[in-house]
């Protein structure tokens, strides 16, 4: 069985917060897609972003880099990029790299939302 190595990004705006739902495979080849999505939001001044990892199966180093590229701009703009609902395997990758010290990684989307409103 061939594995699905594509990434689909679903964008759902929710008042002042934009939610991105990732599905599939985030690696060097699909990273530019996410880069465009995040870039467009940050450029438009929409800095409150929740990225939902519920359906993301794999993330590579290049995929992680995308979040590094925009977190600074989003925070300077008064917002944040919060990550939510990671599968354990995906979380391990973030954890190894020390991302929990740099990003808000929430168990559920509701938690992430709560952190924005708090």
């Amino acid at each position: 069985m061939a594995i699905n190595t594509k990434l689909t990004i679903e964008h759902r705006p929710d008042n002042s917060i934009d939610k991105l739902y990732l599905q599939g495979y985030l690696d060097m080849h699909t990273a530019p897609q996410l880069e465009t999505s995040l870039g467009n939001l940050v450029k438009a001044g929409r800095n409150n972003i929740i990225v939902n990892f519920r359906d993301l199966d794999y993330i590579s180093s290049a995929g992680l880099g995308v979040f590094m590229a925009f977190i600074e701009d989003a925070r300077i703009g008064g917002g944040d990029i919060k990550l939510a609902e990671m599968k354990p395997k995906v979380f391990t990758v973030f954890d190894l790299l020390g991302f929990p010290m740099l990003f808000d990684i929430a168990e559920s989307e509701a938690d992430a939302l709560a952190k924005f409103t708090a």
Partner: protein
Amino acid sequence: MISPSILRLAAVLALVFRVILDVAFFAGGSYTDVYRAITSFLSLAAATAIGYLFYRHECEGNIDEQSGYNHADYISRRLTTTIYLTLIVIIGGVLAEVIADENRGLPTNILSTIIFDDAAALIVFASLSLFFLYYCVTQRRRHHKTRALTRILLIGGGTAFSLLFILALFGESSFALEFSAQAYLLIVGLLNIRRLQWVDAVTSREKRRLLWLGATSCATIIGVLIMAHATDLDIKLNFFLPGLDFFFKTSSTLAAAYCARLTLAALMALPTAGVVDRRNSEVDSLAYLNRIVAETVDFEKLTEVVTEKARLACNASAAWIEMHSGHERIVTAPQGISYELIEWVHINPDFAAIVSNCDAPCLIESLGEHPRLATLAKSGSDFVRSLIAMPLLSGTTRIGTLIVVKPDSYGFEHDDLRLLTAFRDNVSIALENARLLHDSMQNERIKREMTVARTIQQRLLPQQIPTIDGFDIGALSYPAYEVGGDYYDILRLGDGSLCILIGDVSGKGIPAAFYMAQLKGAALALAREVSGARDFLSRINATLFGNIEKQIYITLLCVVLRENPASMTIARAGHMPALFKQHGGVSVITPKGLGVGLASPKLFDRTIEEFAVPLAPGDACLLFTDGVSESRNQNGDELGYEPLIDILRSPASQSADAILKEIGAAAERHKGTAAQHDDVTAVAFVYRGTKSAEQNSEKLSIVSTTTEFSIQQICN
């Protein structure tokens, strides 16, 4: 055939003798039949020789060096000669008549006879010329069999009838004979002049030339006939030489008929001459373009040829190509217009929208009447009043626009649009070819450079592993692509300890390789100054943070080996954990630490941990990159830590090389037929122990910079 020099001599001699005889006669000679026969013969001989010389000269002088043979040009030359000859005959005939008239008081009979003889010679001369004209044009552009048949019919028939006429003089009335002879030659002649399709295909300039020459020749030939009739020469000719009148009239009629037919054909072809010219230039352009396509590998040269040919094909004043490169517009190969003027046209933003970005070939007949481009025409741009824009494609991708302009409104026909569209299709193929060639050359170059890059990167990895007493150290590394972002190094620190660094730059390929080289530089520079594993990683982060792109980071694992007492200290910057075998069990060592380049030195230093572990003989450690543990098979399953732990724990793993060999084999086995998607790097060491170390091992204490020391025991 007779050589021209002999003919020339014969003509000159005949004329000279004739003059001598005439002078002798006027000086007091007597006019006898013998005298008349001689002078007549000389006149005829001279006329025949000169006529034939003309014919020969004309035949030799019509080879065009470029195209070999040009029929229109051949016919034109023939007609020009005919006009000159017939004019000479008319003038000669009229002069003869005038002289004969004025000298009626003198020994009229004799003089008019002499003059008549000369006029008769002129007529023979004209008849021969006209016959040759007709003969030449019917012999050209023919299949050789048809040509031979025509020759036999004309010459054979003419000769046979002439002989019959001479015989008829001694017999009865020759009316029936004359009638059948005329009919015969006219039928043969008319059969041969119907082939004039070639006139349709010549250029309009040549058509006009043929029309003019044909009409003039026709008029002068008729002029000769009228002159002969008015001076009664035609009647007198038959007394002079039987059959001559017939020959003269038939030749003239045939030649005149041919000229008339030619004139008519040229006249009929004139209205469509423009179309034919256009088609000719189209064919020429396409042929030329095809040739250039085969020869040109240079994209720029090709665009130049395209604009030049497009301009010529439409008879336009200027042409240029606008190449699309992203959102930029690059003006290429302008012909008949300057870059400044093209920029000036683009002042009107609608020009780009309508013309440069048109989806299909587009003809704007009058800019002044265009709803959106009228301002351009009004603002004094007298160089562009009408234009054609032609999108250029490479494959299916739009790569640019060919623009052709004229300074007059309604300067282009719809035919021009059609022509350029046909032209465009070939251009597209040409551009695609040039692009493919360029790409393949580019690929070849990149391949070569990547090979060089790979060699250079291989040199960045340790060529020789430094040794430290009691340790057996080994490494393996192979990138997924020509170059990779994996890094390992074994360096001696300032205090004499040995440091193993293993790392992975995020991403792959060239960018990762560049940062890997930068990392190597930083590590080399810092190695002498650092005090330990944690310090090394902190210093590397401080050096690189802010100097690498935001989305790039480097994971590193640093192990410092010391002897006496044997120990290792280990610090991690976001990298995969180390696998450590101690007393036969394997632990996963994961000290806390952020990836290099992710956080400011302040945050990085606050979070990084360092563990110190005493070593006993038989202890071993495996460091690796995610290319090993995340090596995937065709189903996408990752290798994971378990097989690595099993290999490390195996009693067979007595040396670094043995461990690495098994690791490499396991990764390869797991991968199966799937492609390697990440760089694979691993470093292993086995502590064999020294005598002094054994003595000191009891005294070793565990050192940790953090309050909590956690080695996660996986197996015992």
